[in-house]
C-alpha cells in the first residue's frame, strides 16, 4: 500500500517555524523534511523508536545527517506516514539531544496528529478527487473499454477504483466498478460513479454488484461494486 507523507501542524509551526498549513513542498526546504521525503527512513537498517509504544502506536526515529532527527508515525488506518516532530540541532547526550524532546512531546500527548491535521488531510484528498475528474475518470473508462474482460486499476484522487468492461450480447458494454471505501464516503462514492459515467443521469442506471466479473470484492480495501450499461461509443 502506498503511504502519503505529511507533516503535523504542530511540527510545522513549533519545530520548523512554518505556517500550520504550509504546503509539503515548502517544508521540504528543511533538511529533516527532505530526508523524510527522500524515504531516508526506508533505508535505515535498524529501527529505533520513541517512547514505548508498540504495534500500530510505534513512533519511529528518523535520522538525517549529523544534526537532524525526526519522529514518525505510520498511520495505517489512513494511509499516512506522519512526521510528528523534528529537531535540527541534535547532539547526543547534550542539552540539545532531540530524543528527550520527543519523549516530552509524547508524554504531553502532543506527538500524534490531531483534528486539524486530519481535517487538512481529508480536505486535500477531497480536492484531489475533484482535480482528477473528468480527465482521469474518462481515461480509466476508455482503457477498460479497450481491454474488455480485464481489470483496469487506478485512482480518482486518493480513491482506489477497479474497472472491468464485459460485453453482453444485444445489450452492449457493461461497466463494473469496484470502489475502495477505505478512504471514501457516500458523497465521494456518488461523485466517483457519476464522473465515470456522466451519461447515467440518475442512480437507477446503476446496479449493486456483489463481485466483479474477474474476482470477488477485496475485503481489506473495503470495496463496494456497481455496474451500469455504457452508452455506445
Amino acid at each position: 500500500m502506498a503511504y502519503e507523507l505529511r507533516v503535523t501542524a504542530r511540527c510545522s509551526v513549533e519545530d520548523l517555524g512554518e505556517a500550520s498549513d504550509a504546503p509539503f513542498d515548502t517544508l521540504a526546504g528543511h533538511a529533516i523534511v527532505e530526508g523524510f521525503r527522500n524515504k531516508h527512513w526506508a533505508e535505515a537498517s535498524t529501527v529505533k523508536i520513541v517512547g514505548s509504544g508498540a504495534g500500530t502506536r510505534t513512533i519511529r526515529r528518523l535520522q538525517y545527517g549529523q544534526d537532524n532527527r525526526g519522529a514518525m508515525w505510520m498511520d495505517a488506518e489512513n494511509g499516512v506516514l506522519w512526521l510528528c516532530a523534528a529537531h535540527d540541532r541534535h547532539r547526543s547526550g547534550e542539552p540539545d539531544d532531540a530524543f528527550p524532546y520527543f519523549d516530552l512531546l509524547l508524554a504531553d500527548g502532543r506527538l500524534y496528529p490531531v483534528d486539524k491535521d486530519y481535517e487538512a488531510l481529508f480536505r486535500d484528498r477531497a480536492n484531489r478527487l475533484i482535480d482528477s475528474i473528468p480527465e482521469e475518470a474518462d481515461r480509466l473508462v476508455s482503457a477498460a473499454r479497450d481491454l474488455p474482460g480485464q481489470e483496469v486499476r487506478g485512482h480518482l484522487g486518493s480513491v482506489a477504483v477497479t474497472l472491468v468492461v464485459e460485453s453482453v450480447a444485444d445489450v452492449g458494454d457493461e461497466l463494473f466498478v469496484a470502489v475502495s471505501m477505505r478512504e471514501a464516503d457516500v458523497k465521494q462514492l456518488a461523485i466517483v460513479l457519476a464522473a465515470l459515467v456522466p451519461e447515467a443521469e440518475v442512480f437507477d442506471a446503476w446496479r449493486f454488484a456483489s463481485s466483479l466479473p474477474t474476482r470477488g470484492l477485496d475485503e481489506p480495501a473495503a470495496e463496494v461494486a456497481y455496474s451500469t450499461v455504457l452508452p455506445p461509443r
Partner: protein
Amino acid sequence: MSYEVAMRPMLTTARFPRGGAAAEQRREAQYLFSHVTVAESPTVLVLDLRDEFIDSGALYQLVVPLAEAIRQRRMGHYALVVATDDDATIEVLRSLSCEHDLPLLVTRDPNQLQAAEPASRMSPAKASVFSAVKHSRMSTVAQVAGSTGVGHTSASNLLADLVSQGYLFRAEGSGRQGHVYIHPASATTEVYGEDEEAGLLEPFARDLDAVAEATGRPREELLAEAWREYLGNHSEILAAAYSQAAEMLRHGDRDGLRRMASASAKERAAGAAERAKR
C-alpha cells in the same frame, strides 16, 4: 443494523433534581422513575446529580426503585450510572448500593463514563475482571482471562455475574464467535442511520478498533461489512448524493463538487484524531 453498532449501548442522561425543596424533589423523583421506559436494547442511563443540592429522601426514592428494577430486569437492559462530585452523596450511594444490593456505577463527570466505578465493593477477582472490560470497553472471555490471569472458567463466571448484576452488557456470540462483554463506557448517543449522510462513516469507524479487538475480526473486514450493509440498506442516500453530483458535473460546478467531497472532513477528522490518541 450492523454488528458493531448493535453492540454499542445507547446513552440517556437525566438531570436531577431541577432545584426545589425536598417535597418537590421527591415528587420529581417519582415522576422521573415512572417515566423511565423499558429498554429493549442495552441502554446506559446517567443520572446527573451535579450542581443542585439534593434531598437524601429524593435520592432514595429515585435511585433505589430504579436500580432494583434494573437488577431484576424489569426495565429491560439498563446500566445505571450516577454522576455526582459531592463526596457525601457518593457515600450515601455506596451505602444504598451495599444495603440494597444495587448495581450502581458512580462517576464524578457524566462525560467520563470510563471513570465510573461500582458503588459497592467487589471481590478483587471480580474488580479485576470489571476493570479489564472497562479498559478495552468490549472483551471476550478469552481476552479477559488473558489480561487478568484469572482462569477461563472463573473469568466466564465472573463476567456472567457482572452481567446479571447490571454492571456489564453482553452481546450473544454465535458459532465460533464467543460472547462479547461490553462496558457502559462504550455507550453512544448516536443513532445509526439518523445522522447526516456526510458523517455516516464515522459511527462505524469509531468503534471498529474495539470491535475488532473484541471479536478477533480484522478491522478492514468490519469496515467492508459495514459499508456493504449500509449501502444495501440506504441506497436512497447514495441516490440523492448521486443526483447532486451528476447535476454539478453537468454544470461544471467544481466548487460545489469540492464542498460536497469534503463535507464530512471535519466529522471524519474528529473520529480519526480520537483513534490516534488511543
